[in-house]
């Protein structure tokens, strides 16, 4: 079982690592002090379980959970000092939650529960986060990371280098997947590789060859696939 530990406190990570070290089946493949770094490392390590602290700078544990692509989703265990509301919320939904200081016995139960879960089962946190709408998007440009309001962007697209967001003048990168953006933001899919924010659409134009394009406010042209055109057309009541 490959796990990530995400906690902004070094001692808390150390403590959990010590506890996990007693279980042979567990291998800690990454530890991070914030959500941005975790998101960045996820595609590479593809861990089975995330131990997430809830109170963290910039992106809270709950937010981080909602930013993770459900398709590659690892199981999530929240680790918190005290958060009765959150506990109430994911009492039925989360795979598990642990209270700090974590007891070894309790951790063992948690790991047992994790290994009993069949791989096909949809991640349980799905229901927890499904209503959560992202308004701040973790972005990075070079080494610096920041949170940017979703409505600062016009569209998102993916290529081999990853997912990019266009803010009208330039582009930034994000570790969120298009799927997450599609599910958790008002962005609409217009192409397999493109999402567009409805209010950024200036024009939807049908070309002579039957293909359509979306023209954004800043004058960018986005391709529209046939299979998404109908949905777009219906949304804007174009006949």
């Amino acid at each position, binding site marked *: 079982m490959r796990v990530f530990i995400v906690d*902004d*406190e*070094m*001692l*808390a990570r*150390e*403590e959990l690592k*010590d506890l996990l070290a007693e279980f042979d089946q567990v291998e800690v493949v990454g530890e991070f*002090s*914030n959500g941005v770094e975790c998101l960045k490392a996820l595609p590479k390590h593809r861990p089975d379980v995330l131990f997430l602290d809830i*109170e963290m*700078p*910039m992106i809270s544990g709950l937010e981080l959970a909602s930013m993770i692509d459900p398709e590659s989703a690892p199981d999530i265990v929240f680790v918190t*000092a*005290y*958060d009765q509301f959150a506990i109430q919320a994911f009492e039925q939904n989360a795979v598990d939650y642990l*209270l*700090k*200081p*974590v007891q070894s016995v309790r951790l063992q139960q948690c790991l047992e529960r994790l290994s009993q879960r069949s791989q096909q089962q949809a991640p349980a946190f799905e229901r927890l986060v499904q209503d959560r709408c992202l308004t701040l998007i973790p972005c990075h440009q070079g080494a610096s*990371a920041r949170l940017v309001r979703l409505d600062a962007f016009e569209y998102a697209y993916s290529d081999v280098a990853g997912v990019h967001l266009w803010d009208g003048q330039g582009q930034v990168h994000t570790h969120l997947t298009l799927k997450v953006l599609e599910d958790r933001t008002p962005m609409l899919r217009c192409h397999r590789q493109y999402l567009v924010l409805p209010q950024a659409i200036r024009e939807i134009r049908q070309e002579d060859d039957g293909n359509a394009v979306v023209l954004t406010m800043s004058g960018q042209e986005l391709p529209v696939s046939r299979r998404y055109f109908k949905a777009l057309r219906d949304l804007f009541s174009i006949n």
Partner: protein
Amino acid sequence: MSPVMILLVSMAQQMSMFLVIAYLLSKTPLFLPLSNISARLPNGLIIYFIFSAFCILASLFGHTVNDAIANTRAVGAVLGGLLGGPFVGLAVGLTGGIHRFTLGGFTDVACAVSTTLEGLLGGLVHLWVRKQGHYESQLFSPKRALVVTFFAEMLQMALILLIARPFDQAWALVQQIALPMLLINSIGAAMFMMMIQDRRKLYNEFSSAGSDQALRLTERLVGVLGDRPDQASARRIADIIKEETQVAAVGITNETEVLAFVGLGDDHHKIGETITSEQTLQAIRENRVVFADGITTPYKCSHSHRCPLGSALVVPIRDADNTVIGTVKLYEGKRSLFQSINRSLGEGIGRIITEQLTISQHHEQKQLLSQAELKVARAQVNPHFLFNALNTINAVIKRSPETARSLVSDLSLFLRINLKRNQSVSTLAQELEHANAYLHIEQVRFADRLSIEQTVSDALLTQNLPTFTVQPLVENAIKHGTSQLLEGGQVRIYSRTEQGVAQLVVEDNAGRYSPTPGAESEGLGMNIVDTRLKHHFGSEFGLQVECEPERYTRVIVTLAGVPA
């Protein structure tokens, strides 16, 4: 001496005699009804008898002039009307007139008619004054009596000329008697009225020896009041009011039922009964004083038609929100008059009770508030902090038992201060000790992500400020400030001087302060600190915040009155 002068002197003598008699009468209770305007029959009868007697005596003692009588009858008729109203006036005039008629002479008809009309005139003026909505004291104006009598006598002269025959004789008579009668009667009426007015004043002043009484009443009531009256305290209040005002009965109700009733009629005004009295219901409904004076509006007991009570004053009692929570009722019997002094006393009592209730409610709320504030401030030990601290200690034990030990002692110190501090004021040194215990733990927890700097002038350490001021600010600086930074958090606590006044500043380098209204997470702690600072230093010395996004947030406590 001319005949006119002789007549004048003679009439002045007559008038003097009457005024002396009136003065002596004014010392007797017989006079009392004259100084109170009341439509009640006994009152009217007394006025009728007194002034009819005056008219008759005036005719009898009149100065016979040329087969006619120069007299002061007009005074009786006019005053009878002025004080008793049109019916009494007419009756007095008629009685005086008929009596005069029986005395004969060539002016007998003219005099009878004019006297009747004089009485009626006085009564009509009475009616007019009341219709104008003037205070009833206006009826006792000597000036008005003078003017009315003057016109009444002019009327009489005119009637003599019109009715009495032969005209030559009548003309000669009027020439002789007009001046003395106009003069003496007008002045006499005015003096008579003055006497009544004096008597009335005396009576009222006597009553308002009541101011003394009012003070004593207040003092006694204040001792009893405090909370919403229940049956026991209502009974005590009612007893005091009855004792001090000497009214016939006193009742106290809440919004729905009678809480206490003492005095006349307590056989059928039962405690615990639902309110049925029309006046009380009106007072509660309309939130105002209702007065059934027993004259124009009688008090009708809703329980028994044989109830001896005839007038009532119902004063609403209000709580701090100005909603009616009950009434105080003062009653007088059917046979006695509701003294105006008791009316104002009664209204005053209502106000006293209302005010007392407001004060005690206010006091109670204030006390609750400050207790609650301290409690909340104490209870602000953030569970997050506590469990994170325990988790940190847990992690540190293996690696550095020494650090763990010092963490445990910091945590104990922090908790001890939180649990124990009951005084609302502490020195800055105590406040910093509290904040430092907290900071040491956070320092270990956040390790390299948090640095702390503290430079507070030693001179300020003995200054007082509200307990639980500094630690909540430091906690906020970390929780909403540096802990949101990925790295390089810094908290500085320092003193500075701003316009000659010392300030304590808690600064973080996150610059994330956003005064979102209703944001509870930041709000409660900061609000309490702010409120308590204002209580302590004055309303202009609340928390100040300076913020430059992503650079710093400074929360500033001004140590007012402390020279830097």
